[in-house]
């Protein structure tokens, strides 16, 4: 039997590896992207045909301050790619303004974060059904990467709920600046397991500045 990593697509083939997938230790991780054992699923012969439906109402057209901030971040990045330094900086400033307007949750609640991430992840097939029905290639591509990245992020938040932050204690947290994939390890991977950019595209998360 073959098990497939739902984050990066790595295939664990029992006939090659000798050890049955179910007998691997619980802390075994994907050799390619570092995702946990629970992110693997048995290889499917037929694609799933039933996609849960979500009603995407027009109320979603009104963007939140956080979304407006992400919009400005996207435009800033686009200007940067066009070598428009002043425009990139202006959009960055505008993004910071909208970020300052985003409501701050009253409590720091890891359960709440994990719940948002799980429900967001669960919505991907329904959103993908809409982009497919509208033959939108660009959106479909971004959703394929996005779903993989979000699966990794969600699994990290769940792991944090189970065991706290000990698993990041003596190592580094890296984020792929192209697709958002998170990698836990001393060094960034040579290549992003999701979007395939080289290691220098990864950014190391810096610790809190101590005064």
């Amino acid at each position, binding site marked *: 039997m073959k098990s497939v990593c739902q984050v990066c697509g790595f295939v664990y083939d029992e006939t090659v590896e000798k050890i049955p997938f179910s007998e691997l230790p619980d802390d075994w991780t994907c050799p390619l992207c570092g995702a946990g054992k629970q992110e693997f699923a048995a290889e499917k012969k037929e694609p799933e045909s039933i996609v849960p439906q*979500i009603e995407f109402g027009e109320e*979603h057209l009104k*963007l*939140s*301050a*956080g979304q407006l901030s*992400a*919009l400005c*971040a*996207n*435009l800033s990045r*686009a200007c940067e790619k*066009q070598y428009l330094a*002043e*425009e990139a900086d*202006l*959009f960055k*400033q*505008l993004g910071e*303004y909208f970020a300052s*307007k*985003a409501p*701050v*949750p009253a409590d*720091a*609640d*890891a359960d*709440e*974060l994990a719940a*948002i*991430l799980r*429900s*967001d992840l669960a*919505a*991907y097939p329904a*959103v993908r059904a*809409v*982009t497919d029905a*509208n033959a*939108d290639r*660009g*959106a479909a591509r*971004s959703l394929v*990467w*996005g779903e993989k*990245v*979000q699966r990794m*992020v969600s699994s990290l*938040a769940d792991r944090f709920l189970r065991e706290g*932050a*000990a698993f*990041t204690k003596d190592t580094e*947290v*890296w*984020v792929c600046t192209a697709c*958002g*994939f*998170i990698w836990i390890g001393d060094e960034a991977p040579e290549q992003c397991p999701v979007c395939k950019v080289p290691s220098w595209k990864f950014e190391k*998360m810096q*610790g809190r500045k101590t005064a």
Partner: protein
Amino acid sequence: MKRYAVRNLRMCTKDCLCLFVCPTGATDTENSVIDKTKCIGCGACADACPAKAISLVPYAYPPQQPKTPQVITALHYLGRSKASAESAALRLAEAAGDGMYRLMKGIAASERILGADLMREAGYMLPQSENTRAFLQNIQHDPDYADLPADTVNRLLELLYPDDTE
């Protein structure tokens, strides 16, 4: 299509063949940025560069692929929870010890990138597009953002849409 040359500093290996071939001296600058006012868009520098660090970009971009209202609404649905997740992760980072701080910063950064990508696909790929212009113009009249930095928005409109007669 009228174009001009730009250099990716990350890839430039200072072989300086662009200096040898440029007919106007546009590549000869102290800050390594090709002088747009001198560049005639001939492409000789891009052809000669052994590091492939120079490319030609257009002055005017073509209209973008149209997006249907259904796709936009569905992408915004995801974008909203990305923004909520980002806020929740930043709030957790604030309250956290070092290991958790870096993890939560990473989650927030990741949600930000995913949110920005969704926006790009929801019709905001190009800063020079009609959609972006409409966003910049309309947001100035939104009562939720009465203290919006007007100078920043006006300067962007001026830089990105120089042909506006308004």
